[in-house]
């Protein structure tokens, strides 16, 4: 039987379930795809060079080490400076200039030249991470590179650097095996800085983020410092303590305000005024009152959600169909019964939705709450690592917070069906696209 499909662009009409699911997947796939594209296709946007071989500039106090990022222009100047330094050194080699520095110093700097390929050798798997300064092994690697036995898989030397390396090797190979005392007393040329195009540090590669996410969350407690799972547990405790406290007072008060004009007039004007003062402005005050640890953090989340909650719940309560109350009255219900048997069950589904939105607010305030007094939780980690520009560690944590919020909301949306079975079956759960989509097919 031919299907009449809703066209892709149909005003205010739902697409088929399969298409909706497809689009929902795309809404995640597109940004992730863009991120991968920018990260893995070097021709798209790679303004930096990530060094894997660095060098020393004479008379400059700024030292770059492998792994550092340089702007492309700056990198070119860096390479040029080293080239010029090497030309000077060739003048010693040709005997056009006398070496004035003491041999000890020259040997020391030659040792540093030898070690230039330390990280490079590690990246190619020729050395363990802790062997970077093992000069005997480095010496053998120089030999291998000079004689063409080693070429490099992950990283390779440029032709220019190979030439420099071979020229140096002509001086070094006399030693047979490495000994610091036998290093030539004439300066060797430095390898030129080498690197590959890279994005700035604030945009780590997707796979790095996934790997460090795994590392961070599989970390076992060592007793020294907090693991990320402990931090996550702490943050969850703060959010939910603050939020539950808010609910404990805000829910009944909101319902009362929505039910009785007396409470509405008595509380709402002040609450309305108070909510315009952003919660963070009270942070120092809260620390002064509650100390520096958990209490002011919970209090901040309370302040941030409570006042909104009272107003939102009061409004939702007022939206309850009056005729339901009148019907209940003609059935003999008075004050107490009206509130407990009609208003409370009647507004519950909508209040539940309000709370889902307010819980999102609580997460927002958490970020500020954890920075007041003694910094703690996930935010402290983000803050510290962010300052050290370890964004490949910051991203996993940020994404985790997002995932937890999203998962909580989905769970609550899912539970709604069981808590409020009378709500129409066709009710569209926010973002519950996947299950909803397949069911429709």
């Amino acid at each position: 039987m031919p299907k009449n499909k809703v066209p892709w662009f149909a005003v205010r009409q739902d697409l088929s379930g399969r298409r909706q699911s497809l689009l929902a997947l795309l809404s995640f796939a597109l940004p992730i795809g863009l991120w991968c594209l920018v990260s893995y296709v070097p021709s798209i946007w790679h303004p930096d060079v990530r060094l894997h071989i660095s060098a020393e500039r004479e008379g400059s106090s700024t030292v770059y080490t492998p792994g550092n990022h340089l702007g492309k222009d700056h990198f070119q100047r860096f390479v040029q400076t080293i080239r010029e330094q090497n030309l000077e050194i060739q003048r010693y080699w040709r005997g056009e200039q006398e070496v004035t520095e003491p041999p000890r110093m020259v040997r020391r700097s030659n040792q540093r030249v030898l070690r230039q390929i330390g990280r490079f050798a590690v990246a190619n798997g020729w050395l363990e991470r802790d062997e970077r300064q093992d000069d005997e092994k480095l010496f053998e690697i120089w030999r291998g590179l000079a004689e063409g036995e080693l070429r490099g898989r992950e990283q390779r030397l440029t032709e220019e650097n190979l030439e420099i390396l071979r020229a140096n090797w002509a001086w070094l190979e006399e030693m047979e095996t490495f000994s610091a005392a036998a290093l030539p007393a004439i300066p060797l040329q430095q390898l030129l800085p080498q690197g590959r195009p890279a994005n700035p540090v604030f945009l780590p590669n997707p796979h790095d983020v996934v790997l460090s996410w795994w590392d961070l969350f599989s970390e076992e407690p060592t007793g020294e410092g907090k693991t990320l799972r402990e931090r996550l547990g702490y943050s969850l405790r703060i959010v939910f303590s603050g939020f539950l406290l808010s609910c404990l007072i805000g829910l009944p008060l909101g319902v009362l305000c929505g039910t009785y004009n007396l409470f509405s007039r008595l509380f709402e004007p002040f609450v309305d005024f108070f909510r315009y003062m952003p919660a963070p402005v009270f942070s120092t005050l809260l620390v002064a009152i509650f100390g520096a640890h958990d209490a002011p953090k919970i209090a901040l989340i309370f302040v941030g959600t409570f006042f909104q909650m009272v107003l939102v719940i009061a409004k939702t309560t007022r939206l309850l169909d009056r005729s339901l109350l009148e019907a209940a009255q003609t059935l003999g219900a008075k004050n107490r019964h009206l509130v407990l048997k009609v208003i409370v069950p009647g507004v519950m589904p909508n209040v539940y939705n309000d709370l889902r939105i307010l819980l999102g607010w609580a997460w927002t305030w958490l970020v500020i709450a954890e920075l007041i007094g003694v910094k703690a939780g996930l935010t402290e980690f983000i803050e510290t690592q962010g300052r050290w520009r370890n964004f490949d560690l910051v991203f996993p944590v940020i994404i985790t917070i997002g995932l937890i919020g999203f998962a909580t909301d989905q769970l609550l949306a899912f539970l709604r069906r069981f808590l409020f079975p009378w709500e129409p079956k066709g009710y569209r759960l926010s973002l519950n696209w996947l299950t909803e989509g397949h069911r429709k097919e």
Partner: protein
Amino acid sequence: MPITLPSYREQAPEVKERFDRLKQRPVKMEVRGLYKVFGSTDGPVTALQGIDFTLHRREFLSVIGPSGCGKSTLIRILAGLEIPTSGEVSVDGQVVRGPGADCGMVFQSYTLFPWLTVKQNVMFGLKIAGNSSNKAEAEAREWVSLVGLERFENSYPNQLSGGMKQRAAIARALANRPKVLLMDEPFGALDAQTRANMQSYLLEIWRNVDVSIVFITHDLDEAIYLADRILVLKANPGEVEELIEVPVPRPRATSQFLEPPFLATRKRLEALIHPPEKSLKQRLKISRMTEVGDDVE
């Protein structure tokens, strides 16, 4: 050829006898000198003016009138949901001071509690009255089956059709054993077929239950078909135009719609509610927009 109709005041002997008996019965609801004035930006508006009537035990009273005559205001005052500016309503000699279980009400909008099943809705008033859960449930079951909803007793209201919802609402109101059942255009939102069924249903239920009914409607046939007496209101201000004793004998049947007493009553109501001097042609200036021949006239 014009049909000659008897006067709507002419009552067959058995009808007259019935009215005599009805008036002998005790008064369930008494309405005395009811005024309702609303304040508005253009000054006070009188919605109801000097309404008086009595409702006897097991009487069915329809209230009819043009839109804006204050029908809904009247029934809300009867239910105690609104306070009259002056005058009073009493039920069984007790002045109504607010809404309560004495006056049950069925609204036009469906007011079943959406979070309760049909059975739980019917149990609502019973439990508030202090009945035990078991007793309330047993009674609710009876009422649910009386309105023919046994198969839906565990359904939620939004799973029911409009007609079923109103049947459940009637069961909920009657389960409370109110002295008076107030119905505010209860079938107004239903389609014609369902409405006709519901009217017959209501008469059948009322025959078996000891309750007096005040029934608001704007449907003339509905008013005549159901009621013992019809209170006709006129608009601006809302006043009693006439209290008609319906000469159609009981038990009622839809076949009576074409019998002389029914037609005579209907003609009278037409005259009261749509006065001839205000016909459509005079009120609306419709210019001719067709050039097709006159075969429609």
